């Protein structure tokens, strides 16, 4: 939108919502909406609190492990499905099923199989993140410009060279797009996993805060989580833009 001929970036409108929030909070209209300034104070306090550090490092660890496994499994699986039609036909259906399914219903099963600890969260993150990475990688392989592959063949590239020098680079933009969406899903996985287990990490804090009616702390944690999710996906999108800069010219 433009004001007095100056273009104002869209995300700035969030400031208006923050101001509105502060006003509503000050008027004490709703019990669950404390003034925004109070939440900011809570965030600062939270940043120094021991229990937040514990919860954050625990969550970050599960998140990182889950993502790592998703990448290690997801990308090769996607490459294979993209290159071998039979693999795609056999697995594609299940990838699509898991992609749109309410995976949170699997968490109770994961819990009885892996216990009420870290492992369950890691498996949950994996289940949330892996499918979109696989699907995007697979789509990327399928949409490679065929003349690029023919070029490799005509210059006598070995199959290892085809993978390492052509295929992986040509698919990089799609892999990164999948990774960004995978990260967003992964963050949701950590939260949902921890909420359902209810005994660990952020999930424990969220439950404690909402039951004890510590609304400022509750919102502080929510804003922190939102910022984390948006921040991570923003970082990947920066990387994506750099990659697309050279990939933009491909056919």
């Amino acid at each position, binding site marked *: 939108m433009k004001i007095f001929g100056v273009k104002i970036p869209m995300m700035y409108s969030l400031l208006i919502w923050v101001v509105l929030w502060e006003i509503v909070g000050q008027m004490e209209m709703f019990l669950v909406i404390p003034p925004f300034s109070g939440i900011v104070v809570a965030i600062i306090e939270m940043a120094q609190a021991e229990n937040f550090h514990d919860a954050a490092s625990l969550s970050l660890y599960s998140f990182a492990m889950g993502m790592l496994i998703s990448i290690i499994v997801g990308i090769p699986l996607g490459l294979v499905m993209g290159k071998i039609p039979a693999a795609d036909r056999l697995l594609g259906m299940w990838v699509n099923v898991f992609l*749109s*399914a309410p995976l949170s*219903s699997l968490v109770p099963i994961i819990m009885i199989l892996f216990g009420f600890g870290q492992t369950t969260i890691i498996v949950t993150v994996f289940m949330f993140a892996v499918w979109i990475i696989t699907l995007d990688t697979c789509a990327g392989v399928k949409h490679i410009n065929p003349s690029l592959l023919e070029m490799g063949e005509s210059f006598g590239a070995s199959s290892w060279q085809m993978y390492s020098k052509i295929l992986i680079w040509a698919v990089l933009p799609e892999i990164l797009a999948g990774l960004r969406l995978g990260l967003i899903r992964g963050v949701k996985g950590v939260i949902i996993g921890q909420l359902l287990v209810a005994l660990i990490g952020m999930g424990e804090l969220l439950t404690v805060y909402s039951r004890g009616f510590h609304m400022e702390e509750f919102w502080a944690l929510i804003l922190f989580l939102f910022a984390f999710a948006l921040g991570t996906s923003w970082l990947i999108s920066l990387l994506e833009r750099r990659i697309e800069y050279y990939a933009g010219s491909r056919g």
Partner: protein
Amino acid sequence: MHEWFNKDSIFWRLLSILIFFSAWEIAGRVPISPAFPTFIDTMEGLFRMISDGSFFEKYMITLKPLLVGVFITCFFGITFGVSMGLSDRIDWLGQPVFIVLQAAPVSALIPMITYVYGIGFTSKIIAVCILAMPVVVLNSINAVRNANTSLIEMSRSFQGTRMQEVFKVILPDASPMIFAGLRLGVAGGFVGIVLAELLITPTGIGDLISYHRSVANYAEMYATVLSIILLAAATVRFFERLEVRLFRPEKQGT
């Protein structure tokens, strides 16, 4: 004959299902865990639930807030999205909120919803709405924004009014993508209702899952989880088919 070996043919689908369930059966027989029933056990569990009537009873309870939530989402999501797509000001103000909600783990809000609205029907509808709404809104915005500029110019060149432009050109042109957003919204709604069942109060399938878990009827528990995942996938697939039926032939070659 070669029809059978096409990419989407029944043959590959059946083979794929067969392999998946066989792997499950074998893993159950090993067994990889005492809490991992075989596929056949799970199916028996499913039939026990169907025959004692609990399965459909609980599904009716689950699907009611889902349906209401999805209808509310359709109505408000499309209205918000289309108005944001048509107006720069509304877009500037509103879109960031939905971008944030789309990317952020909104499920973290569910404990608070429970606190405010209690453990009843309303909370579940809200859970469905907050998980389904962002994708419907964002798709509707993009659908309207990406409406064919050439068609809009055409309408203007024949002195079409803004109303005619919106209703005769922009909305018909945007409807395939809006519909795609609805499909994703339905998928989001399923996520919402499952979370509501597991986090707010287990009255429907959540009750089946937690009850059978507590008495170690793992077969029934697995059957419930499998059924909701497959129901969600089948519903989404149905909307996908409907989308192709309704809109795709027109999308080809234009």
